């Protein structure tokens, strides 16, 4: 809200004052200042936080139906229990992020029930079907690892106090999801050739899927508000490297081939395929042979959403209106 004296200012002066306020807050949070309420935010900070929390909430929410459809493939009662425990965690994580959004004045009602399926902001990976037990455990090993890579960084670095505290539970549980994935990947590899081949097939489509999830490389990324406002600590490329630094050695130990390797000269992980490239969701295959595409083409594919998008969203919302009508 503009102060009384602001009405005396020209539009240009007001703009300069706003920019000054944004710059002051950026400097403050870079110095370790923690915000505790929306009243302390500038419009720029609030906007960047809402975008970040929306992606976080939608990702947690959409992982639930993806895992839920796949949990049907659990081989025993105990694996059913652990698969559903993970789904329960994801729904709780989603609730936490939507709650934080409500405290910023956004509406969970509108976000969860008022949007078209393609308007959700989760990654393209959670628009894909997970068709067998191996795919579910690799999703835990890869996708949940991406989750903990991203959220662990937010937890350590965010300048928003309520989010920092909420992530204690989330991080703890994501670590469990990741272990579940790793332990099962190891078991499947040991069980012999059939399962190893199946696992390799999962890695072939899910590894590049997760690499892409981290988004635009730093040299193409325009300025990041999330870094300036200290809503996270690492850049997209740094986060992608963190993920690869644990995923590539894991796969190598298991004898699984991944299209990436550690380069000593650059002291980082390097991809062995054109990045980014096109994906055929029906065949679950990356079209390496067709070469590199532009990031605009990637954004087009993401915007078009994947094969399970509408099915997953509808699975979460289907009975709500019916039950609500019983009370009205």
């Amino acid at each position, binding site marked *: 809200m503009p102060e009384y004296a602001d009405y005396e200012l020209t539009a240009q002066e007001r703009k300069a004052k706003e920019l000054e306020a944004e710059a002051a807050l950026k400097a403050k949070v870079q110095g370790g200042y923690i915000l*505790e*309420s*929306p*009243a*302390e935010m500038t419009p720029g900070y609030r906007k960047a936080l809402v975008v970040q929390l929306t992606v976080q909430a939608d990702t947690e929410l959409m992982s639930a139906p993806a895992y839920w459809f796949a949990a049907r493939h659990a081989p025993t009662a105990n694996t059913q229990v652990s698969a559903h425990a993970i789904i*329960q965690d994801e729904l*709780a994580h989603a*609730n*936490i992020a939507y*709650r934080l959004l*409500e*405290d910023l*004045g956004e*509406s*969970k*009602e*509108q976000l969860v*029930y008022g949007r078209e399926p393609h308007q959700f902001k989760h990654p393209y990976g959670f628009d894909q079907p997970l068709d067998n037990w191996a795919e579910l455990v690799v999703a835990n090993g890869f996708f949940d690892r991406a989750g903990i890579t991203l959220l662990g960084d937010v937890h350590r670095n965010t300048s928003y106090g*309520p989010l920092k*505290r*909420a992530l204690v*539970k989330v991080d*703890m*549980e994501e670590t469990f999801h990741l272990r579940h994935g790793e332990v099962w990947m190891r078991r499947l590899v040991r069980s012999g050739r059939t399962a190893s081949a199946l696992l390799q097939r999962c890695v072939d489509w899910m590894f590049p899927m997760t690499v892409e999830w981290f988004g635009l490389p730093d040299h193409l990324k325009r300025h990041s508000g999330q870094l300036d406002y200290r809503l996270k600590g690492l850049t997209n490329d740094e986060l992608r490297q963190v993920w690869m630094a644990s995923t590539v050695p894991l796969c190598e130990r298991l004898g699984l081939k991944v299209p990436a390797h550690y380069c000593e000269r650059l002291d980082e992980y390097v991809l062995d395929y054109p990045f980014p490239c096109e994906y055929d969701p029906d065949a679950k295959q990356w079209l390496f042979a067709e070469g590199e595409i532009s990031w605009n083409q990637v954004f087009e594919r993401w915007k078009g959403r994947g094969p399970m998008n509408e099915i997953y969203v509808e699975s979460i919302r289907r009975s*709500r*209106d019916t*039950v*609500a009508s019983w*009370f*009205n």
Partner: protein
Amino acid sequence: MTDPSPGALGESVYDVFARKKRGEPLRHVGYVDAPGDALAKVYAWKTYDEENWFEMCVVPRRAVLPVNRHDGPWGK
């Protein structure tokens, strides 16, 4: 700022407090949206199951009265 949208099922916010062990402080661990006290307790117990809590309670957010600042989630 209280719950801006109770939703079609008439839910409202409850804050969840818990302590891990005897002698530890009760700490804010999260929140649930529930249509009443009884379900708020169930949701909290089933949702915040990351620890073996010694004690847990839920408080309807509207019952929390801010004393010195009114700009946080408990402000009105």
